[in-house]
Each structure stands twice: as C-alpha cells, then as structure tokens.
C-alpha cells in the first residue's frame, strides 16, 4: 500500500499571497489624480490583454491545451481570449514541428496579423527543428519569421509555457509602444522579406 503522505495537514491559503497586483507605473500622485506617461499605461494595458493565436501542430499543442485549461489557467495573465483568426490576435504561439511545406502557411498567418504582434516559439521543434534533423522539417521557425521568445523543452511543461508568456508580457510592457516604426524593427522584418 502506498501511504498517502500529501495534503493531510492542509495549509490555509492566505488570499493576499495569491493576489498579484500590477506595479503602478512611475508618475505624480496627488489628491484625486495620478499623472503618468501614456506609453506606460498603454504598455500596462497591452501586457494584460494579450490575445494568443495558437498555431499548434503537434505534442506541444497538447501542453498548451493544458496551459489554457483550468489547472494552469492562462486567463490569469489576461490571455483567456484565444483567437483563431490571426487578424485579431497579438501573440502567435507556434507549438510543434513545422514541416518545410507548412512554412509558407505559417508565414502567411504571421503576415495576416496586425501590428503590434509578437511571436513565441514553443518547444524544441518550433525553436530549432528539435529531433527532426531531416530534409522535410524546417529547422526553427526563425528561418521564416522573427521570434520574440523561445520556450525550450520537448515538450515544455505548462509552467514553462506560462514563463514564456510572462517573458512576452515583459517585452510588451517595456518596449516602445511604437516599435513598428523603429528602423531596427523595419530592418528586422525586411531581413525576412516581410514589409
């Protein structure tokens, strides 16, 4: 018989421990007002309302389904609205092996997304081709589209995917809200042949 060792003295959870309140941006407070930069507010708002577009082709997609579901609950990060139209989404999550023949499809999905847009490569296959070191598999999606965050693992656990989402949130909050107009960003897209 396997003794049941866990959960026999359950700890009362403190509500305060499980709540995370966003850090207030720097600014001036006075009686009845708070003044700060618009870009900080926009960054805060964007960060907590990312719409992910899952592009799931294999086992990492299953891990994403767990991430999305109640136990790991992606909705805690403001990303409960998973969209299946690239035109409405902010974050392209590529999860799984991308065959070379799938490459142009993925690229098309990326091009259809409106700015600002971010890309996350989830798992070894999307990041590097993984174990599929072969003629038919794209060796990392960064060969055809720019990637913001790579999540390692084969497949990554939901915690790792959540960590990736939080890294994306950091980028979304801290980078220039007009990233799309910077020369650096334009040059990056041009290097991929995307306007």
């Amino acid at each position, binding site marked *: 018989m396997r003794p049941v060792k866990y959960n026999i003295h359950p700890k009362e959870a403190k509500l305060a421990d499980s709540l995370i309140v966003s850090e207030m941006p720097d600014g001036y407070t006075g009686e009845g007002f708070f003044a700060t930069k618009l870009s900080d507010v926009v960054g805060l708002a964007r960060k907590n309302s990312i719409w992910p577009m899952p592009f799931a082709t294999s086992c990492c997609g299953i891990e994403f389904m767990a991430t999305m579901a109640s136990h790991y609950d992606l909705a805690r990060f403001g990303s409960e609205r998973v969209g299946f139209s690239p035109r409405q989404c902010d974050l392209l999550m590529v999860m799984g092996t991308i065959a070379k023949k799938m*490459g142009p499809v993925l690229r098309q999905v990326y091009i259809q997304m409106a700015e600002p847009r971010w890309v996350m490569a989830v798992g070894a296959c999307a990041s*590097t081709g993984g174990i599929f070191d072969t003629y038919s598999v794209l060796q990392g999606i960064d060969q055809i589209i720019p990637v913001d965050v790579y999540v390692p693992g084969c497949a990554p656990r939901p915690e790792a995917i959540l960590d990736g989402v939080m890294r994306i949130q950091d980028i979304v909050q801290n980078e220039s809200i007009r990233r799309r107009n910077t020369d650096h960003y334009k040059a990056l897209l041009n290097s991929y042949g995307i306007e």
Partner: protein
Amino acid sequence: MMALNNEIVKQKLVEKFGEQLTNWEEPYNFLTFVAPKDLNLKVLQFLYDDETLKFRFLTDLCAVHYPDRKGEEVAVVYHLHNLENNIRVRFKVYTDAEKTEVYTATALYEAANWMERETYDFFGVNFIGHPNLKRILNVDEMDYFPLRKQYPLEDQTRVDKDDEMFGRGGSIL
C-alpha cells in the same frame, strides 16, 4: 471451386510468362517474384483480368533503393490484393537509377496515380504515361529525391547543431 492459393497463382503466372518471372519467394506465406520492368503492365493486366486470379485492388506501390545493385538500383514494388479470396501477391521490377523509366499503372488502377507521384517524389522514378507526375508530399522547390540512399538524412545546411548530440562525429566516436 477450390480456394485460390499461392500455388495456383504461381502456376497461372508461370503458364503465361514462363521463365521471365524470377526470384520466387514466399516469406510469411506472401507470394513474391521479380518481373522484367518492360513486362510490368502485362503482368498487372494479367493478374487483373484473369478470371481466377482477379487481383483488382492495388494495396501499395512503392520503391526501394539498393545502391549496390549496379544498373538496377531502384526497385518498384507492387502489392496486389484479391478481395474475393483474400490473397495477396507482391512483385518487383528493377530499374536503373540514372534512367528510371517504368510504365505507369494508372490506366489499370486509379489508386496508382498518387502512389506513383509519391514514388516519383521520394525516389525519382519516372512513370511513363502518368497524367500528372509531379511532387505530392515534399516542397515543390526540392531538387533531389530524398529517400535515395546517396543523400544523408540530415539537413546539410545546418551550422548551429552540435554533431555530438546527434551521434555523428565529434569527440564521442
């Protein structure tokens, strides 16, 4: 009527084609033989039309590359099935890898259309008379036939993978 079996099939084929069919084998009770490549359609037609044989279902059509068999490197394999008697037969034709010309079976079996495209895609077998012989699974831009054994499996353009991790070279060997 006596049920159809491998002996009857073999006997029928030998009656019709004589010494031209060679390498008779029955691994796992699966009748197998080799035919000259110019005869492939005649053998298929006979197996299809004959009132006793009635091999009217093309289970599979594929190829195997034998780099060591000079002059007949590529084998095209036909798997046929008689659905009435549940008997299968398999035969191969060998062709030169440099000049792979085999007559298409699309006129006889509709199923051969995509199977021959796949065989062309991976082994470069040129099926003469095929209505639409182009790549079916790989990207159109591919300029080689990947399942021929002269090509390494891995993508040779990679520079960022550690060969040691993939069991090919490095200090481990």
